[in-house]
């Protein structure tokens, strides 16, 4: 089992990483001010939104043993909350938070049916959700005339004052926050509880871990943060429509980023998302075969290096000695 092998990998506490991370974040925040090309900002914007989502997927799949196939549900719901909110004069910054809350509430609501299901049944349950929501938002028109996409598409109203730089900063903030959140969760009691559940949930339960609550907690957190990242994405895009909002493409991006980088490793999503964003622009010219190639990469990585780049790297001797050097004080 891949899980067992993961456990053998030593996980030293990288206290020293905190300061460089903050330094990098500050430099990245200064990028728009020092006049970095706009296209770079777009790359970075996508990087941070995808990174946030991949981190949260990793929290569920890599650390909680929940293969969630429904990030699109959280992203779409939050995007719709933001868009519809702006039609009722809700300020966009409140709309983003409301988006996260709606996604989290939805996660809490559906956790009652889906958590009774283990493993594969959980995956089936979550697979259905984006499809259901797509239907709901295609049929249901909460406000007046739809604008985009034939169904119920809406523009995000009154965001003329939000500049591209602001959405960039928002994405940066949520991306960095998601990294810190992962670090915090994994080093907390919640993290060890989740690891216990992932490895064997009946043993965990008999050791006094409240399986349902911990899973629920990580599911709701993941929904909230994924929702916020989704809302920020739709703030940047300026319009939303059901087909792309609840599209399976979200899952492809998120899964690919996590799997390439290494499911169940903290740095995995960072490395994976860099590659995914790179691929995204590399393949933009070949839009029609882009997803085919991404699918091939997903299958290939999963079969040839199921632990991803970081997982495989961790097992090499060079990486370990470098790590020892870095952590020695």
């Amino acid at each position, binding site marked *: *089992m*891949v*899980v067992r092998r993961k456990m053998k990998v030593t996980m030293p506490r990288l206290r020293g990483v905190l300061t460089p991370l903050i330094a990098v974040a500050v430099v990245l925040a200064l990028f728009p001010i020092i006049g970095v090309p706009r296209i770079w900002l777009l790359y970075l914007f996508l990087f941070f939104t995808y990174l946030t989502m991949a981190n949260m997927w990793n929290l569920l*799949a890599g650390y909680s043993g929940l*293969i969630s*196939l429904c990030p699109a549900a959280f992203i779409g719901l939050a995007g719709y909350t933001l868009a519809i909110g702006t039609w009722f004069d809700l300020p966009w910054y409140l709309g983003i938070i409301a988006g996260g809350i709606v996604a989290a509430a939805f996660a809490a609501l*559906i956790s*009652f*049916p*889906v958590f*009774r*299901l283990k*493993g*594969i*049944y959980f*995956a*089936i*349950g979550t*697979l*259905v*959700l984006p*499809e*259901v929501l797509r*239907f*709901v938002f*295609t*049929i249901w028109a909460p406000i007046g005339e739809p604008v985009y996409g034939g169904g119920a598409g809406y523009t995000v109203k009154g965001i003329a004052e939000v500049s591209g730089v602001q959405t960039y900063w928002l994405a940066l903030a949520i991306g960095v926050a998601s990294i810190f959140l992962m670090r915090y969760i994994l080093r907390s009691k919640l993290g060890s509880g989740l690891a216990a559940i992932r490895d064997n949930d009946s043993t965990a339960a008999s050791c006094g871990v409240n399986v349902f609550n911990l899973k629920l907690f990580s599911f709701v957190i993941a929904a909230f943060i994924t929702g916020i990242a989704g809302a920020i994405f739709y703030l940047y895009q300026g319009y939303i429509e059901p087909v792309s909002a609840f599209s*399976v493409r979200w*899952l*492809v991006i998120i*899964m690919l980023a996590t*799997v390439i980088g290494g*499911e169940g490793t903290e740095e995995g999503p960072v490395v994976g998302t860099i590659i995914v964003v790179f691929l995204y622009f590399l393949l933009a010219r070949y839009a*029609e*075969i882009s*997803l*085919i190639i*991404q*699918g*091939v990469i*997903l*299958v290939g990585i*999963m*079969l040839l290096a*199921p632990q991803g780049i970081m997982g495989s790297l961790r097992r090499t001797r060079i990486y370990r000695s470098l790590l020892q050097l870095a952590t020695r004080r």
Partner: protein
Amino acid sequence: MTVLADLATPVVMGILLGGLYAVIALGLSLVFGVVKEINIAHGDLVILGSYFGYVALTVLGIDPILSLLIGMPLLFGIGFAIQKYLLNRAFKISMDATLIVAFGISIILQNTYQLIWTPYARGLTTPYSVESLSAGPIHIPLVYLLDFLVAIVVMVFLHEFLKRTYLGRAIRAAAQDRKTAHLMGINTDRVYAFTFAIAMALAAIAGVFLGLTFSFTPVSGMSFLIIALGVVVLGGMGSIVGTFVGGVAFGLAQTLGGYFFGVAAQMLVAYIMVLVVLALIPRGIFGR
């Protein structure tokens, strides 16, 4: 009385449609029950069957049902290869890996269809696919009746195959206890590959009849996968009778949903029923 007479058509259509859903779900149920893996690409492989029928009809001018003589062996081979070279390997890594690899296959297939056959909806239009039958107040398309009959034939065949042939017994042995089957000299990897291959041959049949009944697009696989999952979970995994009952339940949900809430909502009713089934009876009616 008029309400009853009005209801008669959707009820009969729902039951007959259940036959189609049962055939679509049979392959999934077989793989689920034997290999214990959930083939997320099943819907897309069924659609591959539909496209095969479409090519046979439009390019070669062969009747889609007749084309199954080539289509079934073709999908059988593809299925054997997928299980042997991809899923068997993933299965040894972990359960998650199987799921992710199947998801990858699904994405590859969907986008390949889109590339070859464009995103437009296609259908298999033959002289008999537009015929309909009337009996009193009930009007049903002929294809629905065909779906039902084919379902019964396929199920009887599958049942007899699993019961009487050596391979069928090996499949059942591997389903019950992989390790013991292995110790008894059954090459379980090979049995799994054959199981998946048989499931794909069933998918070829399902695909052609799906194409005769509905129009399909490159992404239709997902909706039929969800319904098939609902059917399998409701019926209890690995049970042929259960799959049939589940199929009828979902057929009825769809036609009655369409009758009461309008055509736009009929799939939504079926999807919500999947969630309800998962929440209330995850082991299914005929599950062990």
